[in-house]
């Protein structure tokens, strides 16, 4: 089949206002009935216990809408966005946007799961604890680690958990004050620098060597008696796999540090290589990347953290235990780092990941890795043939499941750069691609990841759009520079992104910064009163 570009595509443009601009005072979605005389008499004034000085004088300025309005509003917004189920989500390199089987959504929607409460007696939740216990066994086999926790609610929290465990380990040896430095690389995920910094460490970042590989000599210059640990990804953002990873780990171990493997995206190495064999002490997996649980627009996610036996005593509480007869939760762990999040983590993410692995089996997991690497290398061959595209660090050979590309040759020749192409591609029904984490070490970057979900035709269609935009850049660059033309909105003024004076995290801040004054306070009817 010849790849077909979606030339006639046009995105939905509802011109939908912000919800805070909608509605009518007094309008309600639900009219709550009065509590009834008997209940009121017994309960009294439920607000009475709230001290007067922390009570709101005015009710919050919440939008007041009916149910159909709310439904229409959010359905329209959903139509104006491109999600993994609507487009070829190859664009989000490093995010591993694979197909999330819909049958797994049925599983996690079952009341047997949704009606559970974390405070329930463990005797009544043996089933879900068994699922979690079994999935822990699976991750142990995949990574070679000895124990796992599912408590972290995302990848960065998983890395933070590992940083806390590194700190606890050195504290237990009386070296916390001496070992203050975490080493990472510039092409590891930025959370490998940010999380240890949040945990109080100083962060030392290594630049790659001239060929794009992590620089072993730079590591030698960086390790010392102050080294607390190494926190890195492999393959890195560039898609380059560090073949000397064992030497990196050994060097840090010899200096007295621990090594944490950021395996948020392990798609290219499932069943191929493990953290254990590379000598790592700990790792983490994003169940919402490699293990097909949906990203869900920043959650619910799961950063499953695995450690070797020697570090298991530091894991967050509770750990999930099995005595051969019964599953139970263990809070009695004196050296634990405590809790990084409430309860046992995002259980639906674990259930989906478990279902996904069970449907594939061990050989299937290996096939996932092989297919995603094959897809990526097929796509790289086609992308490299497009005029204006370069592969960052062409000398680095082994590329696994993603690649950082560069439009620098195109930019130099035509003036069309990566931001311009990014705005143009949405005109063909494709989500704008991920460029790079900051700083941009690779100029005019973009990062693509065609994981095992995508067929040859899908990849061909995607590449065809890129080729078409490159053609446009050469023949009529104004089309690309003026894009998007077929999207929900036209080009927006991005200068505010750079000006803190114009940033607004809330609607109230937006109004204040736009008008220069605090918005007028309007006294609304109390929300405890039914609409009049």
């Amino acid at each position, binding site marked *: 089949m010849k790849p077909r570009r979606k030339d006639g595509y046009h995105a939905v443009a509802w011109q939908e206002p912000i919800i805070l601009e909608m509605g009518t005072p007094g309008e309600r979605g639900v009219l709550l009935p009065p509590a009834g005389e008997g209940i009121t008499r017994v309960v009294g004034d439920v607000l009475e216990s709230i001290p007067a000085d922390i009570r709101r004088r005015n009710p919050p300025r919440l939008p007041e809408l009916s149910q159909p309005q709310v439904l229409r509003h959010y359905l329209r917004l959903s139509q104006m966005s491109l999600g993994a189920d609507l487009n070829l989500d190859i664009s989000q390199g490093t995010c591993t946007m694979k197909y999330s089987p819909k049958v797994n959504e049925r599983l996690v929607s079952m009341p047997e799961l949704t009606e559970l409460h974390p405070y329930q007696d463990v005797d009544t939740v043996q089933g879900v604890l068994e699922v979690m216990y079994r999935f822990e066994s699976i991750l142990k086999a995949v990574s070679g680690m000895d124990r796992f926790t599912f408590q972290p609610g995302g990848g960065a929290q998983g890395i933070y958990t590992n940083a806390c465990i590194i700190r606890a380990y050195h504290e237990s040896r009386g070296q916390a004050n001496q070992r203050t430095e975490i080493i990472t690389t510039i092409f590891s995920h930025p959370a490998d620098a940010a999380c240890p910094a949040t945990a109080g460490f100083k962060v030392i970042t290594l630049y790659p060597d001239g060929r794009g590989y992590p620089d072993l000599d*730079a590591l030698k210059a960086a390790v010392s008696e102050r080294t607390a640990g190494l926190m890195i990804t492999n393959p890195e953002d560039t898609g380059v796999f560090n073949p000397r990873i064992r030497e990196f780990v050994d060097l840090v171990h010899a200096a007295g540090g621990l090594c944490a493997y950021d395996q948020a995206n392990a798609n290219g190495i499932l069943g191929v290589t493990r953290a254990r064999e590379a000598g790592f002490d700990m790792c983490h997996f994003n169940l919402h990347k490699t293990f097909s649980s949906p990203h869900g627009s920043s959650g619910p996610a799961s950063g499953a953290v695995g450690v070797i036996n020697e570090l298991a005593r530091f894991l967050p509480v509770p750990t999930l235990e099995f005595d051969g007869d019964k599953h139970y939760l263990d809070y009695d762990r004196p050296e634990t780092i405590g809790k990084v999040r409430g309860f046992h983590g995002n259980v639906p993410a674990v259930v989906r990941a478990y279902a996904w692995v069970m449907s594939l089996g061990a050989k299937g997991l290996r096939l996932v890795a092989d297919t995603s690497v094959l897809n990526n290398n097929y796509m790289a061959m086609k992308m490299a043939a497009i005029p204006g595209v370069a592969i960052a660090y062409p000398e680095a050979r082994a590329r696994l499941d993603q690649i950082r590309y560069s439009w620098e040759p195109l930019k130099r020749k035509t003036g069309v750069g990566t931001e311009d192409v990014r705005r143009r591609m949405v005109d063909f029904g494709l989500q704008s691609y991920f460029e790079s984490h900051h*700083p941009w070490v690779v*100029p005019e970057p973009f990062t693509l990841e065609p994981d095992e979900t995508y067929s040859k035709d899908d990849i061909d269609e995607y590449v065809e759009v890129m080729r078409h935009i490159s053609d446009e850049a050469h023949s009529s660059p104004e089309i690309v520079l003026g894009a998007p033309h077929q999207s929900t909105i036209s080009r927006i003024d991005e200068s505010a992104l*750079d000006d803190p004076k114009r940033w607004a995290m809330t609607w109230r801040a937006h109004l204040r910064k*736009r008008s220069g004054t605090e918005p007028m306070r309007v006294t609304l009817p109390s929300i405890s009163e039914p609409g009049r």
Partner: protein
Amino acid sequence: MTGSVQRRVKRLGLIVNPVAGMGGRVGLKGTDGPEVLAQASELGAKPEAPGRAIEALVRLARLSDKVLVFSYPGEMGEDEARSAGLEPVVIGSIVPGRTTGADTERAAREMAALGVDLLLFAGGDGTARNVCAAWGAGVPVVGIPAGVKIHSAVYATGPRSAGDLAALFLEGKVSRTREAEVMDIDEAAFREGRVSGRLFGYLTVPVQAGMNQALKAASRGGEERALDGIAAEIVDRMKDGGLYLVGPGTTTRAVFQRLGLAKTLLGVDAVQSGRLVASDANERALLTLLAGGTSGRIVVTPIGGQGFVFGRGNQQLSPGVIHKVGREGIIVVATAGKMASLGGNPLLVDTGDSRLDDELGGYVRVLTGYRRELVYRVASSTSSPVEPARTRRRGGVE
């Protein structure tokens, strides 16, 4: 954003150094001075600057109703403006075919007096230096790179980006600015194969927001926070009571701002226990300070787009001073964005003492923020020659 009423039509000043770039193609490494220029003409050099200026000005043609262009006569701007479809108000006078740096300086002074909102000029490092000498600080400039030597950070990466940046600024779509280095290199020495650069001053340039490489390398806000972080870390370290010799640059100035002290932007200042002990010190003064036996530290930031840690703009930090302080006493500071702009090329040292340069090679820890360091390669500039062509792509505005 609030739609404030435009005060008046925006005014743009335009200066073209018509002979900039002539030496490059014929291998003369610059055209400073009439003899070299004559030599370049004999070798068949063609003017490069007019064409490049037109390329930039074409990008501004759509604003012809909204912008009043002031230019110098003939080849110094008038011709180029007309070729690009703009109708300039011509000021001043020149001797055609015989323009010099003095014309550039005079033009810049007169345009400053006219209250232009932006000065667009085409040339190389020498031109930037002339502008810098005549220009009051504050009003932004955009450089169209047309010279042989482009070490100054006031230049956009190319003529088109210079035109676009000027247009965005005049339209009010870009309002953020920063101070950019004006670097120049002694051309006579350069021709003899020695590079002797110096930091001449700073000009204010608009910064293109969220649409270009320098900014995406690290957002402006992020850069400012990183500067604060670097300053906080250095001020923390200064609590050891040691003597700190702080080199030139806006990065190191942030340290002084945090201390509440005034920094000599182009010079080396010394601080001890929170007090300024020497301002704009020369080599001898620095050696005298170090003679007392107090432990000394050097705080430096790479100067210019090529990543020189020593030997460009901070020659006061001589081999003698560096020897006294020792390799361990050198603290290199730079934001992560500045380091990324080096394109993976090593930091360079050119102290004038090749043995010392070799000793300083290897890996250095660069302080990039509060408790943030990069491990980065350092090379002696003699062992890794810097090609002007490679320089041109870096260090620009864009």
